């Protein structure tokens, strides 16, 4: 193999598994260390810069970082990255003083943002301090998008959401709430320099089954129903409730129903339990609230008698798989199953819908009626119109919407300044030795053995009685510290200097997880099999040195490195050093695209 080019920041970025997996590339280990030091405000600000909604995300994030976390490869469970973020948010001090302070000197450019969800709010936050005049439109009476209308208060208290939405609105954003944009053409005619569409995927799928019309009064589209609950148009539900669907929306529907008077709430899914889309922790929470999940049942009809919904019938199926691994649901035979219900909530998916976008504005749509959007710049085929969040490629999650928002803001800023939006600003990076002395490092290098700490929950009696009562209580300071200590500090990189190595093998011998090998060079596939422990995790890179004196090379399999620093500790010549790698995605107006 060729020697690894560690000057390319993407190499070390990839070693920080969690940060790399985070769509917004939040510097996770950096904020976790700050939490361990009880520097909650600083930890919050690292998050705020990257993901804009630390308090919201610390409670609701889909956490793509956690399955990626290195700890999960050596220990039973990953670090509770998400819930640590909440510790920072819960305990922060005055963070506002560290945020940009309006009013800002205006640059004369006007931007419209359609939809006030996390994607648009991120664009607003990034662009307002640069002097842009931001106009934010939403049909709802308050900002937040689905974070407000869909995510129930028992998972995300309104006060937490309000605080973080207001941090942005306070930057001098012109809000146009209670205003549905019914024509993009009209908006474009208002002379905006750019329009960002963050209108989400607001249309819930329906199920056209026999009885649907007759039972309509008690059959609800899940996301509409949740919005009605959030805005207090809906205040109760029948005692017996069926929730159709296996995703997170279904989980929110069933748990909300339990709080609005539902006593026998059942989730019914077509697929096997293990294949449900809902996150494992959401399924656990539903089970904890006595909600059975009945799998392998395909809905057939709504049963309505004398104009009153009585329940639904289902066909029992079993999943069979073709050779290619494709799933087929095959009826098992026997009579249909009838399940009683006073209300049915349909949570079987959402779709985009752009009835308000005229098709003659130069914005091309594909055969699925989705706009064609550039994956890097987020621009549509009309160079003034940008898409992001769920509006761009269908329903995802908050953190993805934020990541899109940052990139779209960069593009808008570049284009408003007459520069090419295809030349993206490089990330901010820094690499600094952590050596303080013998056996002394500037980070807490010892690896603790603790298992993941569970987040305490409020008593079910209380939470089921009040839909606004938050279920999770969050870690206290001490548990937060202990959980933070489980982080392996993957951003403290092992940096190898070939010229200094005398090939004494000390690093290889001491490494607890057999990461380091000295061997003849070969192609990557061969090299992977030649190591002390073969490197079978192909998603993890090999760090290869140039040729040493003996013509061998040092090969480090990054896979299960604990970042314990023992290799650097045992190296007589400091050929290994532990260096802190800070990587921050550039935001609009920062980085190499410096403001003129």
């Amino acid at each position, binding site marked *: 193999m060729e020697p690894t080019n560690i000057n390319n920041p993407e190499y070390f970025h990839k070693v920080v598994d969690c940060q790399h997996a985070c769509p917004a590339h939040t510097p996770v280990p950096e904020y976790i260390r700050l939490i361990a030091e009880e520097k909650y405000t600083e930890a919050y600000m690292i998050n705020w810069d990257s993901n804009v909604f630390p308090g919201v995300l610390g409670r609701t994030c889909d956490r793509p970082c956690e399955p990626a976390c290195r700890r999960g490869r050596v220990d039973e469970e990953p670090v509770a990255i998400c819930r640590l973020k909440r510790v920072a948010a819960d305990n922060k001090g005055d963070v506002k003083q560290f945020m940009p302070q309006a009013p800002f000197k205006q640059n004369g450019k006007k931007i419209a943002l359609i939809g006030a969800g996390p994607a648009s709010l991120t664009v607003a936050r990034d662009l307002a301090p640069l002097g842009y005049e931001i106009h934010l439109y939403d049909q709802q009476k308050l900002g937040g998008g689905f974070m407000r209308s869909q995510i129930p208060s028992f998972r995300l208290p309104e006060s937490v959401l309000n605080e973080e939405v207001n941090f942005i609105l306070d930057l001098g954003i012109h809000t146009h709430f209670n205003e549905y944009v019914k024509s993009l053409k009209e908006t474009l005619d208002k002379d905006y320099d750019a329009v960002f569409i963050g209108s989400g995927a607001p249309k819930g799928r329906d199920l056209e089954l026999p009885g649907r019309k007759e039972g309509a009064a008690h059959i609800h589209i899940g996301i509409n129903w949740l919005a009605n609950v959030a805005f207090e148009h809906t205040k109760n539900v029948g005692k017996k409730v069926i929730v159709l669907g296996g995703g997170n929306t279904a989980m929110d529907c069933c748990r909300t129903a339990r709080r609005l008077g539902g006593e026998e709430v059942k989730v019914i899914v077509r697929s096997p339990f293990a294949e449900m889309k809902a996150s494992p922790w959401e399924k656990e929470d539903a089970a904890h609230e006595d909600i059975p999940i009945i799998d392998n049942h395909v809905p057939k009809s709504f049963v309505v008698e004398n104009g009153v919904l009585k329940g639904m019938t289902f066909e029992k199926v079993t999943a069979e798989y073709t050779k290619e691994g494709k799933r087929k649901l095959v009826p098992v035979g026997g009579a249909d199953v009838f399940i009683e219900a006073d209300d049915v909530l349909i949570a079987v998916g959402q779709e985009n819908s752009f009835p308000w976008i005229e098709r003659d504005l130069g914005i091309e749509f594909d055969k699925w009626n989705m706009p064609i959007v550039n994956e890097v710049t987020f621009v549509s085929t009309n160079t003034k119109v940008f898409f992001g969040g769920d509006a761009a490629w269908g329903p995802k999650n908050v953190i993805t919407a934020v990541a899109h928002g940052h990139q779209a803001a960069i593009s808008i800023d570049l284009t408003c300044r007459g520069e090419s939006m295809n030349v993206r600003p490089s990330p901010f990076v820094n690499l600094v030795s952590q050596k303080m002395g013998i056996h002394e490092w500037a980070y807490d*290098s010892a690896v603790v053995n603790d298992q993941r700490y569970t987040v305490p929950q409020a008593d079910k009696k209380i939470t089921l009685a009040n839909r606004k009562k938050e279920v999770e209580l969050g870690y206290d300071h001490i548990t937060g510290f202990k959980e933070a200590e489980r982080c392996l500090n993957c951003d403290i990189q092992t940096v190898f200097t070939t010229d200094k190595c*005398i*090939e*004494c*093998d000390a690093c290889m011998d001491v490494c607890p997880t057999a990461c380091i090998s000295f061997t003849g060079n070969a192609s990557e596939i061969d090299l992977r099999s030649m190591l002390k422990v073969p490197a079978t995790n192909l998603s993890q890179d090999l760090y290869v040195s140039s040729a040493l*004196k003996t013509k061998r090379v040092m090969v480090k399999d990054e896979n299960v490195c604990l970042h314990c620093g023992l290799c650097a*500790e045992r190296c*007589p010549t400091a050929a290994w050093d532990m260096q802190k790698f800070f990587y921050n995605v550039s935001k609009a107006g920062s980085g190499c695209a410096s403001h003129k």
Partner: protein
Amino acid sequence: MTYLRPKFRHPELQKNKLGYTVDYYEGALSTLCAGCGHDSISAGIIQAAYEMNIQPHKLAKFSGIGCSSKTPAYFLSNSHGFNSVHGRMPSVATGANLANRDLIYFGVSGDGDTASIGLGQFVHVIRRGLNMTYIVMNNGCYGLTKGQDSATADQGSKNKSGNVNLFEPIDLASLAIETGATFVAQSFSGDKAQLVPLIKAAMNHPGFAFINVISPCVTFNNNMGSTKSYDYVREHIEATATVDFVPDMKEISVEYGKGTHKNVTMHDGSVIQLHKLAEEWDPLNRQSAMNAVLNAKSKNEILTGLLYVNPDARDLHHMIQTTDKPLNSLTKSDLCPGSEMLNAINADLR
């Protein structure tokens, strides 16, 4: 502060035949200087014990005094161990071995511990053919007492303070062959590919097995002008042959062509496979082994690999015809069979 070894190990470590992963053979984290060759040899011992499927409680470690003699703390924590006085490891090992012949005896010593204060004990334990593995971690100096020249320092070799050694060195490998060791090898701490099979073969050898391992002292003897530095050793190393130890004839997977290859079959069916043999060297012939060592020396080469082996070796217990049962397990009735037996013996002598 990192000076704690994390408990996590690579999740894909393979188990040996006993079901242990290699970490079961580890010891405490070493307190030797970072980069000391001795640590590398310890790692080789751990690897060899793991590969040999050794039950740790069936092995006893012995050592004298020195950095090298400290290393039994850093490998095989689950085995027995005795850290004896300076240069006296052979007598303690002899006592233990006589008391219980059922254990594997593993001695670790330094060049000071063996070639200076312990030289007398060393040659006598060899003469007696004690069934043990004896490793010298040879750094050409007294590491523990701050690097004075030892008796294995080469004539003309410079130490860290610039002093040149005036005296003829003791060549431990030649001495071992000379005094009757039945397995003699030489190696380098920086060459585990060679060292590990040699340790395995030595542990399996049914007599006295000696391995002299050049092991640079990074702190006191890794300077320019030293003949035991990493750089010097790497530049002057020559191998008799590459070595493989195969515990069972049936497991031999690679067959090599004649001429450059030799299989030495031990009496228990295990095989030492040697390939790319040096010319004019026969590992089964003491004379030839001595010549090879001397030739290399005259060319300023450090000859490594297996030097000499006698596959028919017999150990001390065999020579003095002790009972097969470990002496420490003999009961009073075994030792004092009673007057009837005495009478029978007396009758025999009449």
